[in-house]
């Protein structure tokens, strides 16, 4: 008997494959069960993924219908807006800025205003 710690110890009693025939049966059974479990898992995940696609497909039609209705409403609104242009504003920029009508008439007129007309127009502008 060697006492050298570098030499192997006979641990063959613990070897799970010590009994060859028993080990063969065990390995075959284990492999079969493991692959069965794999097949079951794959079938289950396949069913789940097909379930998701069916659910999405069932949502697809109502969603498409709703989108179509919204598009039709939006399109008709756009067409109507394009067909009837908004009425032009009668308020000029000068009026919007608060200039009196008389003064703007003078500005738009090609005729030379008199001093009296200017004085009256500016006086009207000075009134708040």
């Amino acid at each position, binding site marked *: *008997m*060697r*006492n050298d*710690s*570098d*030499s*192997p*110890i*006979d*641990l*063959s*009693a*613990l*070897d*799970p*494959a*010590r*009994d060859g*025939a*028993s*080990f063969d*049966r*065990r*390995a*075959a*059974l*284990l*492999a*079969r*069960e*493991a*692959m069965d*479990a*794999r*097949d079951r*898992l794959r079938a289950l995940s396949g069913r789940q993924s097909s379930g998701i696609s069916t659910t999405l497909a069932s949502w697809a039609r109502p969603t498409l219908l709703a989108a179509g209705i919204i598009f039709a409403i939006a399109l008709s609104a756009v067409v109507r807006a394009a067909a009837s242009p908004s009425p032009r504003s009668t308020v000029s920029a000068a009026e919007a800025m608060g200039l009196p009508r008389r003064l703007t008439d003078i500005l738009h007129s090609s005729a030379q205003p008199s001093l009296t007309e200017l004085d009256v127009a500016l006086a009207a502008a000075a009134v708040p």
Partner: protein
Amino acid sequence: MALDRGTRAPDAALAEPNDARLIAAATAGDRGAFEQLVRRHYRAAFTVALARTDNRADAEDLVHDAFVRAAERLEHCRHPEKFAAWLCAIVRNLAHNLRTRGLSAHTTIIQHDTIASTESPERDAQLAELRDRLQSALATLPVIQREVVLLHDVDGRTHDEIALIVGTSSGMCRQHLFKARKRLRALLIRTDGATPLDA
């Protein structure tokens, strides 16, 4: 006693497909390929399980569950050439779960008594006694030393292979092996000097 893994002898390497090929075939549904993986790596998985459970029946159940889980997740094995390390990691996780749950693993499909031994009853009894003594001695070692000595002396793995499985260096493996054997010899010779310890 070591199983052929296609790494021992060149002719064996030529004859047997490597793990990557077997995993690819098993992933495609080849049951025979998976059975080859079971035969090739059962010992490694078992020794790692035994190192962590100190109980042969629990170890067998853990190995069973580990192979089932491995089969279910073959696509997740990103490095097929390191299948043994991946499988043993699964075994460790299951052993950890077993410890934290504090339950026995005797709930899995394999019934231990359905796979009968082909040895004689007397031989079975002797073997059981020897196993008890070996397991008692092993139980006194740190887990890493148990794994290393079992992977080396039961499964016949090389230091490089063991280093990959236990996640350490080849040099550390040698140290663990040396210490484990020294301790086991001291324990087993003291109890019965006539026990044939040396291989």
